[in-house]
């Protein structure tokens, strides 16, 4: 064995934890190597010095100091726990109070609009908003069930809303010969444009003579039925002549109303329709255009034919 190898293992040799073979080799080397022998002696001396360090006296009161500190910790713990419990309890109470009071949000609107400053000027000129980037999502759950707004509707500056239906009540009887007071829903100029003078003159008679343009005077048992059918046909004819669309028609079970026609007509053609119907029938009520939004392109009309 070489000196380096022996020196490395001398500590274990001192401990007596080397193998028998190693022990023999070490002792053989130590017998011939003075340096390693001196090294072993010094090592032995050092180990003995450390081994023989005395046991130091434990300072009085270490055990009691330990127990005191432990009891202090326990006291602090017993103070903190009710405090923390109290806080936790208060938080639970707050949550129970706050959650029910929280207003349920039924309408959520998120809107991001970016407008360029230059486009603000254009808005005032042509009443249009030019948007660089627009994202509008409107989700409603309202009583009236507003539909989700498509983007194109927003660009036109109007929101689609439920069409208001106007109701027109027409008497099944033909227009009387007496002049019927017309409700002035149009301007004076428009009124004068109507060719009613001849009608007024004819109607000067006190007795009302039923004049139905399209009535065939047939003396049949169900003459009134025949008359009524022709009223509906005439009304439908008037509607289609102004490019209106018949949405529905049905016989009414009401004691006064015989028939109901629902149609969709262009806003601009309402006047024409009204004139056409007024020429032929007695209008019990004339729906006012003020109830109709001028921006609507089409209006919904419900015509009730009375007995």
């Amino acid at each position, binding site marked *: 064995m070489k000196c380096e190898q022996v020196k490395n293992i001398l*500590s274990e040799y001192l401990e007596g934890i080397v193998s028998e073979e190693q022990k023999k080799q070490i002792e053989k080397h130590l017998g011939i190597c003075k340096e390693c022998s001196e090294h072993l002696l010094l090592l032995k001396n050092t180990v003995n010095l450390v081994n*023989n360090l005395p046991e130091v006296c434990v300072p009085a009161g270490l055990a009691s100091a330990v127990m005191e500190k432990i009891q202090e910790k326990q006291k602090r713990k017993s103070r903190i726990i009710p405090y923390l419990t109290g806080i936790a309890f208060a938080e639970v109470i707050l949550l129970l109070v706050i959650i029910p009071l929280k207003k349920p949000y039924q309408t959520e609107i998120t809107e991001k609009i970016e407008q360029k400053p230059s486009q603000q000027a254009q808005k005032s000129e042509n009443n249009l908003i030019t948007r660089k980037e627009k994202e509008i999502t409107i989700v409603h759950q309202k009583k009236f069930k507003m539909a989700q707004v498509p983007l194109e509707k927003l660009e036109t500056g109007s929101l689609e809303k439920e069409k208001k239906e106007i109701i027109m009540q027409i008497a099944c009887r033909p227009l009387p010969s007496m002049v019927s007071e017309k409700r002035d829903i149009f301007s004076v100029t428009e009124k004068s444009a109507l060719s009613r003078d001849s009608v007024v003159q004819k109607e000067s008679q006190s007795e009302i003579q039923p004049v139905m343009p399209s009535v065939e005077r047939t003396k049949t048992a169900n003459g009134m039925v025949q008359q009524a059918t022709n009223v509906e046909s005439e009304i439908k004819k008037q509607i289609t002549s102004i490019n209106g669309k018949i949405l529905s028609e049905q016989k009414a079970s009401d004691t006064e109303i015989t028939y109901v026609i629902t149609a969709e007509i262009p806003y601009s053609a309402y006047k024409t329709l009204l004139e056409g119907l007024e020429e032929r029938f007695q209008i019990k009520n004339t729906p006012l255009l003020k109830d109709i939004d001028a921006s609507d392109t089409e209006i919904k009309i419900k015509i009730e034919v009375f007995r």
Partner: protein
Amino acid sequence: MNTQDPNILGDEDLVRKVQDHNDLYAFETLVKRYQSKIYNTCYRFMGDTQEAFDCAQDTFVKIYTSIRSFKHLSSFATWAYRIAVNTCKNRLMSWEYRRTKKTRYLSQDTLELKDNSISPDQEIERSRIQEKVQEAINMLPFDQKQVIILRDIQQLSYEEIEKITGLRSGTVKSKIARGRDKLKEMLKDLKYEM
């Protein structure tokens, strides 16, 4: 009601009493049983009586607070030593300790067990040697210091040292060898005389 004297109970039984019933009397018994070993270990690490006292106190408090996590996989002594070594290590590494580190000399009348068989001169000489040895131990790096203290001062087995330090057998042996070599160089002028 169990009226068994805790002093006659083994470590494991005392530990279970503390774990199951928070028996502070049983814990105090454990403290008194191990205070010398733990304090001495702490003293050899710190080289200072006050620091050793604080470390020993902290060690026992830590033992108490974590006793429920002790799974009895090793002996209570091994576990206690491990906590003591770690407590001392943390203290030595702390900034506060390094900033206020002072060299304090052993006081003969408070620290050592008096040996009435030797003369006062011999007593003084012995104290001087012991101081030198402690100083040399203080100079060792921590990993060598811990194995030297546990092996050469506390006389623990290699197996126990492995469990306490978490080091492998070969590593423990090599660190002991290197630690002893360093001490040898520092103490070569001192002669062991008993």
